[in-house]
């Protein structure tokens, strides 16, 4: 008689990040971790706990609060043979290092005629919901997706967090892994061994027949909750987690829309000028004749992230807003 299958091991998102970093450090002798509070303190959210102890101060070290210096360190080290893991504590701080990200890291290979390789992995924490207000809560992926030369991925589960970090570190391009602070305690299955989540492939997290919700990051979970609610309205929604924004899996989006004929994009970032606009444009370019309704977009209102829990709850999209938007879109 066959042994009963053991329940897959579950880890919280935060520990999956740690395991991803540890795996990279074990597999790649040229990898190091640099960032604010990453060594002695184990990171502000603790996801570097134990990394210093295991790999030592030559490979894991605290930096001054100098984001431009930290990313520049990564650029110079990567161009000369290292594989840096750079921590930008909050995505909001990218303003401090945007020259090194946008003008140096993203472009160096191209400007040098393909004669530079920059295997830099940047980990950064995004997302609202913790009353951290306007400068510690943003989702700024649209800034960096607009920069040719960067890859951008967002992890919404513990499994994806570990797998995307390992993929990012194996990639010979700069990859920014956007993590979500509200997901840190989320439990999910995470294999103990090393594995990758492919960069550039969307994940169909729920199959459906007549509606497509395209999302990424923490909003995937709200989209799934909304899909359950939508069932009662006779809507059988498919949910796509893009996982990778750059490169974007346009094929997966188009294939789904051709099947379901109706689409919505959900992201936590400000709706105006957000990444959803790009997806919407691609759908109308590549699947216009298949659409039975205008493409809907759900995102944050056009304001900074507020502090008050009441205001913040109004600000961040959720399942109810997704359902309301779908009803309006479909005239239900």
């Amino acid at each position, binding site marked *: 008689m066959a042994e009963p299958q053991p329940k897959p091991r579950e880890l919280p998102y935060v520990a999956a990040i740690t395991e991803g970093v540890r795996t990279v450090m074990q597999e790649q002798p040229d990898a190091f971790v640099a960032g604010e509070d990453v060594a002695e303190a184990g990171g502000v959210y603790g996801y570097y706990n134990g990394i210093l102890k295991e790999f030592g101060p030559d490979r894991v070290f605290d930096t001054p609060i100098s984001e*431009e210096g930290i990313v*520049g360190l990564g650029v110079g080290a990567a161009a000369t043979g290292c594989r840096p893991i750079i921590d930008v504590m909050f995505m909001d701080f990218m303003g401090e290092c945007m020259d090194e990200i946008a003008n*140096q890291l993203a472009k160096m290979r191209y400007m*040098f005629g393909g004669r530079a390789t920059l295997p830099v992995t940047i980990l950064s924490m995004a997302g609202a919901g913790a009353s951290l207000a306007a400068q510690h809560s943003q989702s700024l992926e649209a800034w960096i997706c607009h920069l040719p030369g960067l890859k951008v991925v967002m992890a919404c589960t513990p499994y994806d967090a570990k797998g995307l970090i390992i993929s990012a570190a194996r990639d010979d391009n700069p990859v920014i892994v956007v993590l979500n602070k509200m997901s840190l305690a989320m439990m999910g299955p995470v294999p103990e061994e090393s594995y990758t989540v492919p960069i550039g492939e969307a994940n169909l997290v729920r199959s459906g027949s007549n509606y497509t919700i395209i999302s990424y990051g923490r909003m995937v979970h709200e989209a799934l909750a909304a899909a359950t609610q939508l069932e009662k309205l006779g809507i059988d929604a498919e949910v796509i987690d893009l996982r990778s924004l750059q490169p974007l899996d346009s094929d997966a989006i188009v294939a789904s829309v051709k099947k379901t004929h109706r689409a919505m994009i959900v992201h936590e970032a400000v709706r105006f000028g957000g990444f959803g606009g790009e997806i919407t444009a691609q759908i109308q370019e590549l699947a216009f004749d298949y659409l039975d309704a205008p493409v809907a977009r759900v995102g944050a209102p056009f304001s900074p992230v507020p502090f008050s829990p009441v205001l913040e709850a109004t600000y961040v999209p959720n399942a109810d807003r997704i359902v309301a938007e779908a009803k309006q879109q479909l005239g239900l």
Partner: protein
Amino acid sequence: MSSEITDDILLDIHRRMVRIRTFEERAGKMMEDGKIPGALHLYVGQEAIASAVMVHLSNEDYITGTHRGHGHLIAKGGEFTYMFAELYGKATGYCKGKGGSMHISNLDLGMLGANGIVGGGPPIAMGAAFSCKFRKTKNVSISFFGDGASNEGAFHEAANMAALYKLPCVFICENNGYGEYTPQANHQAIVDVADRAPGYGMPGVVVDGMDAVAVYEAAGEAIARAREGGGPTLLECKTYRYYDHVGVRGMGLSYRTDEEVEQWRLKDPIVNFEARLAEQGVLSPEAAQAIHEEVLKEVEAGIEFAEASPDPDPAAVTEDVYA
């Protein structure tokens, strides 16, 4: 320690300076004639610095340049053929025509790029210095930057981190007295950028950047200390750009006087160096002239190569974005 300067080294520095001067004078002319697209920031007047620093380095040592970066690449061993081809935007250029003057680079020579962003280079040089230490080589990384860049936060962050981690890094400020078109007195309250060094916890040294021997000795000391694990130095070289911030025209301008330009030209790094070498019996005026002619031929060959080279295939526009 001060490095013993041999006749061979003097001649080596001289040739590098002449190569830079000759290349730049011709490149400026080509830009004015409309043969080179875009904008050039010429290194003429500052040749002693790149030349006297680079004789201390091998191809495994790294440098980051500035927007005024041709001189850095030439002194690091850049070939005129691929350099002119790059300035022309040709497929045979060092960067396949994708970088041009402001991003000219060659990683095989350890040259991590000129940079269109003032202050963009110091963090990268600091990162390359970290890499030397991390990989346990004895190599060093040199950041060239100007007085203008010394006001950028990026320089401050890089200098602080290099000193904190005791990296094999040398920050070489080419203080030509102007941040673009703004005189130093209007962009910072100090006269010597090197005064900032103690604030980072590193030595600060000021030398006459028009005197190749002075630069050679000061750079030698800083580089040797960096190689031995003694950490970074901020070496400020007082210099002058004969031509404009961008392009050629150097005289008759509103932001500086012609008299000022003429005074600095009296300190010309090549003319004075040649007089010294002649006096010391190291290089006769005739021999110096022969070197100028030889280098000019090399320049002409470079231009010929560039002009005969193919343009990039338009399809290459989206190549090399990703590895």
